């Protein structure tokens, strides 16, 4: 700036000399001074403008850098959180698996009344804990956008059965009436995510039981519009509990939203249940609404769409859900389980003994490696976290040696971690599947079947089924009748008539044998009518019949036979209406 001033003064000097009196010179000086001042200001303005522009860019760059840094931190925290959840999951689920497995086995032993009661409490508490752990994991996974729905055949009756099995004890402990009503027009088989639908309903019902001191808790499922595909179902969960104040209705779906009981204490739980419900319903493209009146109760309504299961859908999951196919040839197979938890090992030994499949157990990485190098197995079940090493690494080791006897043996990873991380770290090695502990026996045996069949050249060999083998069937009515008898309407009509005549007699016999608790007789009748139902082609009724047959045969779920038999009769009424529409028959009454 001095330059401007100097230049101005220098230039001014020449002109100043030419001026006459002092007055003129003073005026000139004033003008020069004002000029210099204006130039200085302009110069400053220019510099400030340039600086401000650069400064804005610098701050913007820094803000972007900071945001990127924050993003990295958040991603790191997110990774840490997932690892933490995975670790917590493992640490909690492993002992929980032991508790659930042992209590399941204990229930099958001779026990006095008190022991049965205590066992039931242990099992109930472990189930509760599992719900909370699963809630936390679901919440974490949903927030990370990692929950994906699977679309598989879904049986509302099975969900009903599972819910009742889980909640009846809880409801009874509070003297509450727990009812689940599937409307007669609810299809037997739909396509959807069984686990997630169960999770939604169990969460709502669990809540209702928690907040209801007297009265009842009910689930009603009905079809909103008949004969539509996809099927829109309305699930109504209603209770006679304390209700939710209007001002809190907006917040109940928020995470960690918990309410207090009448004593002002916070009710147990993580406060995530309803948030998970809302997210899952939204994930299923459904709607959820709630109405409540303080002192009278609460009613949640959920609307969800499910496509009807097609014949091919059901064929794909042949032997799924509650049916197990076990071949005599499996007695020749050898399975190695590498697991350090003694409770889990005992449970597995019991299951494999039941299935007549030889099972070896290794409790450490070193022992596992030694046994795998020593003999050939048909399937390996391995835990991930072993006391002296990593189960995945163990598998990687045997897979890396072409001459190892188990180089190609199918491997099922048993993990207590319910998230996907462990799948990622096994990348590059061939794994048949991952089972999240605690697993159900049916799931495990299915994996055995898959492993054994992949090893065998006789995958389609005749198997001796000691339980129900699900048949290929169609949700289309009379498909098998038409296939068997083609255009011979007369024979088909006769078959229908035989069926309609046989039914009242069968129902009567089934009623009687159930009343007498003569399960052999009941099994005989069910088995007999099943083949007729199969020939006629009544898919939904066949589903129920097969489950009934399984329960009776295994004698493990006898308490579920009576309610399922009621469902059988309800389905029969529906099927009869369909038969009457299609065939020229005289209606037959069913008691």
């Amino acid at each position, binding site marked *: 700036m001095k330059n401007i001033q100097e230049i101005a003064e220098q230039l001014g000097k020449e002109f100043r000399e030419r001026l006459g009196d002092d007055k003129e010179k003073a005026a000139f000086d004033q003008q020069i001074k004002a000029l210099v001042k204006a130039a*200085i*200001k302009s110069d*400053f303005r220019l510099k400030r403008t340039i*600086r401000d522009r*650069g*400064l804005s860019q*610098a701050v913007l760059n*820094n*803000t972007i850098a*900071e945001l990127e840094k924050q993003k990295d931190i958040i991603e790191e925290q997110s990774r840490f959180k997932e690892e933490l959840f995975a670790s917590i999951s493992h640490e909690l689920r492993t002992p929980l698996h032991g508790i659930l497995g042992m209590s399941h086995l204990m229930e099958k032993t001779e026990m006095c009344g008190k022991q049965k009661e205590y066992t039931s409490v242990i099992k109930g508490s472990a189930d509760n804990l599992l719900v909370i752990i699963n809630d936390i994991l679901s919440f974490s996974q949903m927030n990370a956008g990692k929950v994906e729905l699977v679309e598989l055949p879904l049986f509302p009756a099975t969900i009903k059965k599972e819910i009742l099995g889980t909640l009846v004890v809880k409801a009874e402990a509070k003297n509450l009436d727990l009812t689940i009503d599937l409307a007669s027009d609810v299809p037997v088989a739909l396509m959807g995510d069984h686990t997630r639908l169960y999770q939604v309903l169990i969460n709502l019902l669990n809540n209702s039981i928690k907040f209801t001191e007297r009265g009842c808790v009910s689930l009603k499922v009905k079809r909103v519009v008949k004969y539509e595909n996809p099927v829109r179902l309305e699930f109504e969960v209603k209770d006679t509990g304390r209700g939710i104040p209007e001002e809190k209705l907006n917040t109940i779906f928020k995470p960690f939203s918990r309410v207090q009981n009448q004593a002002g204490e916070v009710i147990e739980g993580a406060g995530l249940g309803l948030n998970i419900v809302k997210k899952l319903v939204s994930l299923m493209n459904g709607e959820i609404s709630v109405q409540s009146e303080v002192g009278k109760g609460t009613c949640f309504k959920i609307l969800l769409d499910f496509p009807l299961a097609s014949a091919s859908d059901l064929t794909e999951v042949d032997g799924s859900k509650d049916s197990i196919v076990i071949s005599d040839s499996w007695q020749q197979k050898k399975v190695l389980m590498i697991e350090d938890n003694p409770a889990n090992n005992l449970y597995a030994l019991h299951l494999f003994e039941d299935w007549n499949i030889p099972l070896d157990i290794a409790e450490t990485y070193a022992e596992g490696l030694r046994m795998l190098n020593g003999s050939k197995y048909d399937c390996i079940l391995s835990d991930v976290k072993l006391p002296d090493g990593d189960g995945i690494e163990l598998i990687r080791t045997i897979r890396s040696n072409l001459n190892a006897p188990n180089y190609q043996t199918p491997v099922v990873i048993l993990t207590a971690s319910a998230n996907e991380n462990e799948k990622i770290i096994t990348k590059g090695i061939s794994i048949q599947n991952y089972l999240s502990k605690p697993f159900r026996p049916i799931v495990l045996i299915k994996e055995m079947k898959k492993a054994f069949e992949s090893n065998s050249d006789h995958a389609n060999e005749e198997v001796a089924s000691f339980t129900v083998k699900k048949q290929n069937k169609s949700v289309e009515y009379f498909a098998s009748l038409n296939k068997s008898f083609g255009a011979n309407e007369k024979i088909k009509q006769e078959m229908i008539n035989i069926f309609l005549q046989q039914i009242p007699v069968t129902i009567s016999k089934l009623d009687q044998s159930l009343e007498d608790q003569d399960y052999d007789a009941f099994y005989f009748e069910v088995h007999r009518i099943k083949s007729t139902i199969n020939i006629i082609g009544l898919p939904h009724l066949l589903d129920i019949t097969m489950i009934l047959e399984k329960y009776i045969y295994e004698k493990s779920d006898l308490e579920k036979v009576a309610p399922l038999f009621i469902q059988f009769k309800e389905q029969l009424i529906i099927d009869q209406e369909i038969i009457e529409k299609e065939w020229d028959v005289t209606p037959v009454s069913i008691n």
Partner: protein
Amino acid sequence: MAHSVAEIQEKINNAITTAFKPTLAISFGSVKCDLPAYVKIFDDHQIQLFGASSAGEFINEERTEAAIVVMLMDMNPDYFEIFHEESNFAKSFQTGNNLADRGLAVYDDPAFLVTLSMSVNGEGLISGVHDRIPREKIFGGMAGDDFEMNATYTFINNKISANSVTGLILDASKIDVSGVAFSGWQPIGAKNRITKSENNVVYEINNEPALEVVKRIFGEFYNTLENDNLLMSASQYPLQMIKDGKYILRATLQTSEEDQSLTLAGPVKQGQEFRFSVAPGFEVIDETINNFQKYAVEKGQPDAVILFSCKARHMSLGPLVEEELEGIHDIWGKDMIGFFTYGEIGMDLDGTTNFYNETCSLVTLTEK
């Protein structure tokens, strides 16, 4: 205005006539002048002195440096009293209490003009006054030292101190004391958090050394314009904090390469969130003048105008600060005195009194 004690003494002598016998001198002066000698010249004229060292001074629309400015007033001595107390950061609240107590002792409705050394906590001082007088009327400025950052002084007759508060207590039932303060600084960049601090010294921002953060954000722009030292530039990027729902600016008075700290012109709390801020464009000059014009419409014609304008503001507006001074002076055309401060006490547009930085705090005195 003068650049030496002799010159100012001569000007004072000339100003005093039989018709004009001043009783009060409001004065601000550069530490480059002989202030200890200066404070001794007023006794002879029975004038009571209220003042402080400055970082640039102005009278009416004329800005100067390394000079002394003084406004002589013939105010009835019953309407005012001078207060002076040695103080420091820790004692600030107590000094505020003492000032208020003295005010209440002499007047039913006291109002205050204050100057304070930079070793005093401006917020604490106001809180101390507020503690005694909830609807306090207090205005003023933190003394400067031409940005030497050694010591700043407040003074009265025969006394000048680097750790003190000087107050001009006014009888508000006789003299209307009003004012308004305006900043215009704009927040910029993301939110930050003070993670380590003590009183008015910030050691860490976002868990990083404070000075390192400032340098990273503003980088080369520290050394632009006429400011070739880091300290001067740092003061232009004050920390804008939220206090009681309002933004309060805290300018950097000092930086330390040794411990990477920033010394602010006011206390801060550890954990406090803030955003850095930058000087507004030159439009702020018009905005400031407009705001004061609105205030003028309500207040009418004052007898004197006193202006406490932040030094950092001066640095940001550069030579254009004179346009602001000129515009403000033109509002009333009355005598105006002021200085460039290290902190301002004033009332914002919402009527809240606070200790500010980067602000232009205007006070009008009107005899009722």
